[in-house]
């Protein structure tokens, strides 16, 4: 399996926050979801990929090319959709498109016009007259019109109504029907990722917790529930976080099968959702 993105030992330090030793790959032809609570470092990773911020250490390769040394070549293959699309407010959409188009050799004007029609975006409207959802659609139309091999999206579904969120996710699924295309999108809305992502990279407090195939994660991770004083988090193999409730304790494990085999009837077992994983690790006294 070839990788669209390879990230090794990436580091970025801010005052009060450090993205530390981030390493993961995004396989080509799949949708990778970058998940984590607010402030975990998702946007920082995407900005580092786009060279919008300077890395302190590490390496980023996109389609085998270093993203700094081959910046124009790399960016020519990326369709970037920012969490809040930013264009000059008082400029018409058609003018924005005509300003951006010459940067891309593979820009397809007919495709762009088709996407504008499909998204019901009037080309003669100024950017400020669009709703948040329409701005996101316009940004997506620009990203798709140059036949990008990698679609990079930072929190694309945040603030969107459920109908457009569904539409957008369906669109992402359609993109990767072409095996050359890859999507990396960050979100804290776990249901969106469960719906479309093939792979998940979970980040918390600037560190990667895991990066794996979604089905594997949903298959192996689980929540072990037991009455009060029956179990401690350290009793559970692969324990990654715990929460005490009025009725006992709930412990997140990354190895549900082993926990079930070792603890037997002392507890009840549920498969973990991505929301469970995010909650227990970030809020539930998470420990590795």
């Amino acid at each position: 399996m070839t990788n669209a993105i390879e990230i090794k030992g990436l580091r970025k330090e801010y005052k009060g926050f450090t993205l530390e030793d981030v390493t993961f790959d995004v396989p080509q032809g799949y949708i990778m979801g970058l998940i984590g609570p607010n402030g975990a470092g998702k946007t920082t990773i995407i900005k580092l990929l786009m060279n919008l911020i300077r890395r302190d250490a590490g390496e980023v390769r996109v389609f085998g090319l270093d993203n700094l040394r081959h910046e124009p070549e790399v960016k020519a293959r990326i369709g970037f959709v920012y969490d809040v699309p930013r264009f000059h407010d008082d400029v018409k959409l058609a003018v924005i498109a005509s300003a951006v188009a010459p940067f891309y050799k593979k820009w397809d004007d007919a495709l762009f016009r088709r996407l504008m029609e499909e998204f019901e975006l009037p080309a003669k409207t100024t950017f400020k007259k669009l709703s948040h959802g329409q701005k996101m659609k316009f940004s997506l139309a620009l990203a798709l019109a140059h036949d990008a091999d990698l679609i990079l999206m930072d929190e694309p579904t945040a603030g969107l109504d459920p109908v457009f969120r569904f539409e957008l996710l369906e669109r992402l699924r359609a993109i990767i029907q072409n095996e050359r295309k890859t999507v990396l999108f960050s979100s804290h809305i776990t249901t969106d990722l469960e719906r479309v992502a093939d792979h998940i990279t979970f980040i918390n407090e600037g560190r990667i917790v895991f990066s794996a195939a979604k089905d594997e994660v949903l298959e192996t991770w689980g929540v072990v529930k037991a009455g009060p004083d029956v179990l401690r988090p350290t009793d559970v193999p692969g324990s990654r976080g715990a929460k005490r409730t009025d009725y006992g304790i709930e412990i997140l494990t990354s190895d549900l099968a082993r926990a079930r085999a070792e603890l037997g009837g002392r507890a009840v077992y549920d498969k973990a959702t991505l929301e469970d994983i995010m909650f227990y690790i970030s809020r539930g006294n998470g420990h590795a």
Partner: protein
Amino acid sequence: MLKLVRLEVLLNRKALVTIFVMLSAFFAYTAYRSFSPRQYIGLISLVMGLAVPVAFQGREDRFGTSVLLCSLPARRSDVVLAKYAVTWAAIGLGLVYALALAALPFSKIPLPEVINFKGLLLLLFFSSLFFDCQLPLMTRFGFKGIMVTIIGFQLLGVLAMVFIQLFGGQRNPLRSFFLAVESFFRFFMRHEPTPGYLLLLGVSIVALNAGSFLIARALYARRDL
């Protein structure tokens, strides 16, 4: 780089038209009233060279579109080069516009006095002194960088006046500095247009811009967006 300049112009064309409309009356009035051709040309080029990047950078900061610029398939150094190109194009445009106005019947500017090689080189040299301070700060800090340069130059003027008021002409501790600045300007302004002098001016303009660009490029590479 040309694509970036084109993008800047397309996305800011309304602002560009507004600047021209707003400043036309002022420029025409200056052509009618002006007593010094050199001041007239210098003023218009300076105003245009300042107004265009201020407007463009102000809009870039306001709409947060630096992210758009840096997400396009271009190097950051190209973005910086485009900002320099836009500024110098604005100065050039101001110059052409000034000459066009000077040719109109109401103008009191004697065109032959304006159009001479030394005068044009001097204009570029003094513009470089100002803009090559401003542009690195603008690329690093955006609109704030422009304000810092303008206020910085104004503060220098105020400081000079305060020192003169406090210490008088002779006992002023900055006297030697003022004299050095004065003789620097006098040297360039009053020198005969010999080939060596014109070459020195040309080389100085290129060196100032190259040095400023390298600083701006290094600063912009460190800017987190």
